[in-house]
C-alpha cells in the first residue's frame, strides 16, 4: 500500500514521465504481488497433501515429545493430545497448573479419585512435582494384578489390590478366576481378561476406538490403547482398532483433513484453518479446507451448510403446501389449487367453496367479487400466514433457480469443451494450426468454469444476506460478474469467430470481477 502511494505521489510531481512511471508502477506491483500472494489472491492457500505414513510419523513425533517432557506412556500421551487438538504446549501447561484436573477432564481418572493425593501434589508445586509425575505416569495405564506383568507397575494405587493368587468373581461373566486374570483402570473397576477382550471387540465392531470406556455402569473412564492392544489378539480387530483410532486422531487435529475424494487416502495439512480451497494432488478433488464440503467461496461454511440443508430437506415443500394449498372448510382435507378459478369443489367431500374467503360457494352466486371485501375479516390470521409463506417461497425460489441454473450451466459448458476438443483435434489433423495454437481455448474454458463456480456460490450468500447498502453492493458486483461470465461463455462457444485478443481481454475482465467480489466479501480470516 505504502509503496503504491509513494509512486502515485511521485508520478504526480513528475508529469513528463507519467507513462514511464505507470509502466514501472505496474511492474513494481507485480513484484509485490509475487512476494505476497496472500494479498493479491484472495483464494491463495498453502497446504500439503500427505500420506497416512507421513501423518503417522507427524503424530508420533508429537507423542514422543510429550512422553519425554511429562514422562508418561505413549498411550496416555495420545489420549491427552487427542483431547487437546494435538497441542503439546496446552497439555504441558494444563499439566503444570493442575495435573489432576487434566486427567479427570481427559477421562483418564474418575472424578474424586485420589483427590487428596492430587490436591497435595498440585498445591505444593515444586516439592510435589516429582510425585505428581509418577502419579501421572501411573495413570492412564491399566492395572493387572500380576506385579511383573505390566511394565509401569501400579501397585501403589489407593484402590484395593487383589492378591494375584486369590480367586475373584468377574461381575460380567460371573465366573471365579485367579486374581492375575483381572485388569482395571484408574477407577479400580476390575473385570476379567476375557470379558474385557469381548467387550473391546464389540466396541471396535461398532467403530468405537479412542472413546471406549470402562465396563462399569456410570463410569466414564477411558480405556487407553495399550490395554486394548494388550488384550485384543485377533489381527483383524487390532487393525480395525488402529484404523479407527487413526481416524479419531486426524479428526481431532485442527490442521489435518481427510481428502473427501472416494477411496482417497490422502490427508491435507495446512496451518491456515480457513475456508480456502484445497485440491488433492492425487485424486484432484477440490474441497473447502475448513468444513470439507465442496468449495463455496464467497459463502462461508455455516451459511452453505444451511443452504444445502434447506435445498435438500422438505422445508420448501412445507412452504409450498402453505402457499399453494388450503384445507377444505368442511372435511379439512388438504387441497391444492391447480387452476385459476376460485370456485373450488373439494374432491373428497364435494363441498363447493370459495378459495378466497373459504365461505360456501352458494352465497357467492353472481356476486363473486363481493368476497374480496370480506376476505380479511374471517381469515386474517390465516391469510397473513399464507402471504408470508408465499413471499418466503418466492424469495427462496429466486435464489434457488439461479443457483441451480449455474450448476447446470457448468455441466453444459463441460460438454462445450468436449465438443471443442473434438473439433480442434480434427483441425490439427487437417493441418490448420498446431495443438499449442488452440491451447488458449482450454485455458479460457477452465477460467469460465472457475468464474461460474464462484458465481453459483454467490447465490446462497445473497439469500442469507440482510438488506442494506452492503447487499446492494454485493448484488451489483454479482450482476457485473454474471454479465462478464455470460459474455465469456458466448465468446468461447463461438471461439472460431472470436479473435484471440478479444477473448483474452474478456477472460481478464471476468477474472478481475471475480477476484474483486471475493476480496470484498469472502471472509478470509473467519
Amino acid at each position, binding site marked *: 500500500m505504502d509503496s503504491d502511494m509513494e509512486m502515485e505521489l511521485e508520478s504526480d510531481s513528475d508529469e513528463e514521465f507519467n507513462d514511464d512511471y505507470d509502466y514501472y508502477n505496474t511492474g513494481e506491483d507485480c513484484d509485490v504481488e509475487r512476494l505476497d500472494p496472500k494479498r493479491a489472491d484472495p483464494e491463495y492457500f498453502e497446504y500439503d497433501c500427505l500420506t497416512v505414513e507421513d501423518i503417522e510419523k507427524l503424530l508420533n513425533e508429537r507423542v514422543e515429545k510429550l512422553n519425554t517432557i511429562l514422562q508418561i506412556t505413549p498411550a496416555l500421551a495420545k489420549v491427552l493430545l487427542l483431547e487437546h487438538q494435538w497441542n503439546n504446549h496446552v497439555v504441558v501447561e494444563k499439566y503444570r497448573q493442575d495435573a489432576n484436573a487434566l486427567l479427570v477432564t481427559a477421562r483418564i481418572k474418575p472424578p474424586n479419585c485420589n483427590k487428596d493425593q492430587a490436591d497435595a501434589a498440585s498445591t505444593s508445586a515444586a516439592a510435589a512435582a516429582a510425585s505428581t509425575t509418577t502419579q501421572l505416569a501411573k495413570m492412564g495405564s491399566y492395572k493387572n494384578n500380576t506385579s511383573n506383568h505390566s511394565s509401569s507397575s501400579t501397585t501403589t494405587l489407593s484402590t484395593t489390590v487383589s492378591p494375584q493368587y486369590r480367586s475373584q468373581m468377574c461381575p*460380567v*461373566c*460371573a465366573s471365579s478366576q485367579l486374581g492375575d486374570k483381572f485388569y482395571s483402570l484408574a477407577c479400580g*473397576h476390575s473385570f476379567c481378561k476375557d470379558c474385557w477382550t*469381548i467387550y473391546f471387540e*464389540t466396541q471396535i465392531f461398532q467403530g468405537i476406538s479412542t472413546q471406549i470406556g470402562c465396563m462399569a*455402569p*456410570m*463410569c466414564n473412564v477411558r480405556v487407553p490403547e495399550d490395554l486394548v492392544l494388550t488384550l485384543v489378539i485377533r489381527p483383524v480387530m487390532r487393525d480395525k482398532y488402529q484404523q479407527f483410532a487413526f481416524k479419531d486422531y486426524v479428526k481431532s487435529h485442527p490442521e489435518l483433513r481427510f481428502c473427501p475424494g472416494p477411496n482417497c487416502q490422502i490427508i491435507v495439512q495446512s496451518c491456515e484453518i480457513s475456508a480456502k480451497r484445497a485440491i488433492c494432488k492425487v485424486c484432484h478433488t477440490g474441497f473447502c479446507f475448513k468444513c470439507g464440503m465442496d468449495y463455496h467461496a464467497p459463502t462461508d461454511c455455516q451459511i452453505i451448510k444451511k443452504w444445502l440443508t434447506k435445498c435438500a430437506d422438505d422445508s420448501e415443500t412445507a412452504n409450498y403446501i402453505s402457499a399453494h394449498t388450503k384445507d377444505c372448510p368442511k372435511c379439512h382435507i388438504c387441497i391444492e389449487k391447480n387452476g385459476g378459478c376460485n370456485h373450488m369443489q373439494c374432491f373428497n367431500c364435494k363441498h363447493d367453496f370459495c378459495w378466497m374467503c373459504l365461505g360456501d360457494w352458494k352465497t357467492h352466486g353472481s356476486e363473486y367479487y363481493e368476497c374480496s371485501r370480506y376476505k380479511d375479516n374471517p381469515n386474517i390470521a390465516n391469510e397473513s400466514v399464507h402471504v408470508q409463506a408465499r413471499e418466503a417461497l418466492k424469495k427462496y425460489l429466486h435464489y434457488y433457480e439461479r443457483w441451480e441454473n449455474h450448476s447446470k450451466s457448468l455441466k453444459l459448458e463441460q460438454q462445450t469443451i468436449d465438443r471443442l476438443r473434438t473439433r480442434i483435434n480434427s483441425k490439427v489433423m487437417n493441418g490448420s494450426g498446431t495443438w499449442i495454437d488452440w491451447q488458449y481455448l482450454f485455458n479460457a474454458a477452465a477460467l469460465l468454469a472457475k468464474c461460474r463456480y464462484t458465481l453459483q456460490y454467490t447465490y446462497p450468500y445473497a439469500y442469507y444476506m440482510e438488506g442494506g447498502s452492503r447487499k446492494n453492493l454485493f448484488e451489483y458486483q454479482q450482476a457485473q460478474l454474471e454479465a462478464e461470465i455470460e459474455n465469456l461463455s458466448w465468446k468461447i462457444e463461438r471461439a472460431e469467430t472470436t479473435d484471440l485478443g478479444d477473448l483474452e481481454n474478456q477472460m481478464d475482465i471476468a477474472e478481475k470481477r471475480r477476484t474483486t467480489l471475493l476480496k470484498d466479501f469472502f471472509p478470509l480470516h473467519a
Partner: protein
Amino acid sequence: MSSLPRRIIKETQRLMQEPVPGINAIPDENNARYFHVIVTGPNDSPFEGGVFKLELFLPEDYPMSAPKVRFITKIYHPNIDRLGRICLDVLKDKWSPALQIRTILLSIQALLSAPNPDDPLANDVAELWKVNEAEAIRNAREWTQKYAVED
C-alpha cells in the same frame, strides 16, 4: 442354540432365590433367554395397584449388549409408547455389561415412580404431562385400573 453362559445361569438363579420386591421374572420353559416379567406399580404413583406384564429377552451377545425389554400391558406413561417400548438410558447408550436383569428391572420400576416428560417417547402423553400434570396422572390412573388391574 449354544449352551447358556454362566452369567445368565447365575443371574436366573439369583432372581429366583432372592426376588426383588415388586418384581417377578421367570424364564420361559422353552427359551432360557426369554423372561416373563411382572412389575407391580410402585406405591404413591399413578400406577399403584396395577400389575404390569413385560417381556425381557437376552440377545446373543448379552451382556455386551443390553437386554430387550417391552411392556405388554398397556400403560399411560411419557417414556413408554403404545407398543410398550421403553425410553430408558440404561437400555441404550448407558448400558454397561456389569448391569444385570435385576438392575434393569429396578430402573424400570423407578421410571414408573418418576416419569420424565422432558425425554419423551410418547409425545402426546409427555405433552399433557407437562402442561397439565393433574390430568395426565388421572389418565394414568384410569389406564392402570382399566388395563393393569385384574378383576
